[in-house]
């Protein structure tokens, strides 16, 4: 019991990454350039050192991410020397689906859920790494590390395979695939502590700065580009905010904060009484909305 818990979590994640690669035919890593993605990519580089991680990165794009995330995404993929596949759902593109006109639910369903299914089918990936953690949301706490998805990418909580020790059943029937979550047992706090310890580059949006914001329905939305439609009575105001999680910018609310570096973020989190996904506008459409999304194939 002498070694600290982050070293144990790191070794576990590396073991999972190697096991998945040893047994999958066509693995891929989902990569959004968020902090969990950055930690997962870092762990992958460690797991396969001295060679490059033997799989491509896949970004299921919506066209509505923060501009900084696109820059960071391309830079990190290049630094890792890995192929980056960017998929944008052509149907959503043709219909001009966006979060402002169509709402969070439809936007997320078409761009992310459908887009992910399209990308996995098109490239015939049989295993996709994701950075989801069990502490994020109640339905995640019951998720397996190797999670089976049907040929239509659906998650069936009652058909999950028991997972004992470090043994993972990666056998697949026709059309089935796996989602694998190396960070399953990590918490938000673990991620930030690890970011600090390993000096992992993450988006500056996580740290407090003066940013143009609009207050809407009690949330502080960031005006990240000129596509932000102002409603009557709304004004753009410079506020000192940071993002706790990064998604599509119109769906990720900022929080007022003075935390300008990792240490300050950790201190703020220790004092905070709000959950990490507080600023995520997609989780709250309806009760159990995350569980429903996963059954439909959301990551």
């Amino acid at each position: 019991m002498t070694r600290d818990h982050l070293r144990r979590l790191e070794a576990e994640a590396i073991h999972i990454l190697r096991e998945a690669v040893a047994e999958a035919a066509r693995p891929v890593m989902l990569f959004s350039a968020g902090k969990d993605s950055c930690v997962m990519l870092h762990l992958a580089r460690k797991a396969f050192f001295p060679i490059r991680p033997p799989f491509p990165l896949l970004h299921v794009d919506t066209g509505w991410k923060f501009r900084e995330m696109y820059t960071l995404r391309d830079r990190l993929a290049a630094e890792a020397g890995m192929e980056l596949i960017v998929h944008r759902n052509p149907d959503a593109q043709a219909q001009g689906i966006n979060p402002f006109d169509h709402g969070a639910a439809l936007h997320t369903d078409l761009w992310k859920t459908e887009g992910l299914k399209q990308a996995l089918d098109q490239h015939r990936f049989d295993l996709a790494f994701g950075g989801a953690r069990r502490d994020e949301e109640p339905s995640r706490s019951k998720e397996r590390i190797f999670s089976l998805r049907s040929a239509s990418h659906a998650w069936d909580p009652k058909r999950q395979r028991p997972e004992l020790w470090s043994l993972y059943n990666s056998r697949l029937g026709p059309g089935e695939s796996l989602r694998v979550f190396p960070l399953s047992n990590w918490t938000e706090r673990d991620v930030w502590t690890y970011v600090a310890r390993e000096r992992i580059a993450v988006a500056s949006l996580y740290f407090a700065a003066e940013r143009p914001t609009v207050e809407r329905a009690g949330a502080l939305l960031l005006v990240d580009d000129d596509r932000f439609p102002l409603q009557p009575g709304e004004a753009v105001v410079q506020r000192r905010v940071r993002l706790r999680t990064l998604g599509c910018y119109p769906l990720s609310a900022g929080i007022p904060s003075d935390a300008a570096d990792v240490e300050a973020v950790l201190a703020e989190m220790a004092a905070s009484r709000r959950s990490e996904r507080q600023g995520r506008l997609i989780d709250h459409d309806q009760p159990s909305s995350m569980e429903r999304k996963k059954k439909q194939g959301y990551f």
Partner: protein
Amino acid sequence: MASLLRLLTCGSVDDGKSTLIGRLMVECGAVPDDRLPRSSALDYALIADGLEAEREQGITIDVAHLSFETPHRRFLLADTPGHEQYTRNMATGASNADLALLLVDASRGLLVQTRRHAAIAHLLGIRSFCLAVNKMDLVGHDRGRFEAIEGEFAALLDRLGGGACTAIPVSALNGDNVVTRSGAMAWYDGPTLLEHLEQVAPETEEALAGFRMPVQLVLREGGQRHYAGTIAGGAVAAGDTVLIAPSGRTARVARIVTMDGEVARAEAGDAVALAFEAQVDCSRGDMLATPGDPPTEADQFESTLIWFDETPLLPGRQYLLKIGTQSVAAAVHEPKHKLGLDTMARLAAKTLEMNEIGVANIWTARPILFEPYERSRALGGFILIDRISNATVAAGLIHFGLRRAENLHEQASSVTPARRAALLGQRPKLLWFTGLSGAGKSTIANLVEQKLHARGRHTFLLDGDNVRLGLNRDLGFTAADRVENIRRAGEAARLMLDAGLIVLAAFISPFRAERDMVRAMVPDGDFVEIFVDTPLAEAEHRDAKGLYQKARAGQLANFTGIDSPYEAPEDADVRIDTISTSAEEAAELIMNWLERQPG
């Protein structure tokens, strides 16, 4: 930095487990305000019960993995349901836990469920227990009641084989002795639950002294190979000589490589990559070990099995066994006994049903490397996977190898199967006819054999009925006997293929898994599956032997198609529709198919 404690929580329905965990997490600040239950104390339970289906039923139906921490410790908690039918989840949660937190309702005392949970936790290697005697408020915070339950549990633990236990009187509802001390139980001077969990040093299995590292994969960088894996026991240092099992070769470790630079030494729990000084043969499934102290190697061993699947264990059927980084075909003998978990009594068993635990011998298609589970969970725990459904059907713990294979060496023969076949001037094949009783398998196989014979081919016809009169006289028609019937027929056919013959085998062989087993026994491409497809109504109408009539009258049990299933081939090499095709035409069809094959 805080150390990590992995714990399992279990209790019977209504013991108040979810409420206790909810309170523990809330009071440690692990539950944010926007996820807090609104007001009533009972709602603490909602924190642990994550899934919609569970909230509807008001019970916990799957393992929930929860995290919380204090300045002293980071906790990783597997919360497992109390319902009997979900025993498999308990085993899953226990497999990685250092400590089991068991809940007992003070007003109800130790229940059958409590005994089962303690037994499973102990079986899976947990030796540290914490007994939270809950609902003390319901028994007037009575010290005598608490001590009676504490004593009863200590006796239970002794019967299970021993271990350490700390009992704590609590009320999850009121928060007494969970995180803060209770004024209501001044007689109790031990730690609160959280204090205990922060301080306890869990008893773990005796660490393996020798170095053990199952090889996960080989990373090739130019000409240099790196062997990646997680160290399961002992330690390794640059310059050490290691043994590569099972080949028995040795290699010197040149470097231990990490992205942060080379390290001089690594130990159990570390995920590493090793480079050797010289090129040696080593791949996934091999195990690195201390020279002179190799891991155990056997192809027959005794194990305890925990059956998970709705389909019961079928002794003799081939499953896929996964242990460490090895995957191998394996079959289970009929169980020696199953365990009555409430009394730990050994009960007679022919099979294992879902959630049953029993002891059985297992044999594998090739020897595997392991350590007894009692010495190493990582090297002694395995899972069984169904080859058709791909479900994880069981977990197992290896106790010891039976070492029978060591005395049986395959007789190497210098006249090879290929040379025998060459002398006969033919390519050996196994033509496997499957279909319902009375479908016409033997009739068609007979005609095909005549045609082959007429063309100068060396053949042999293995007929299900004839084999049952001799070689398999001792077998009946239960599912297990049907599996063994096909296994022996497959082995007999394999010997004849080695002799260079074209073998025709006519067996109902109703289960896909057994046909696949025979396919796997013989060289690739030699197995030809011929589906003699006669609908049940037609076979029953013909009923040449009067068997269907007897089966319908209840005089024949386990009759395929009547009260025993037939799993039709999904992708047969040849399918014969006997409604539209005569036996003679069918034989011609098969001859034509054979002539189109290469070789």
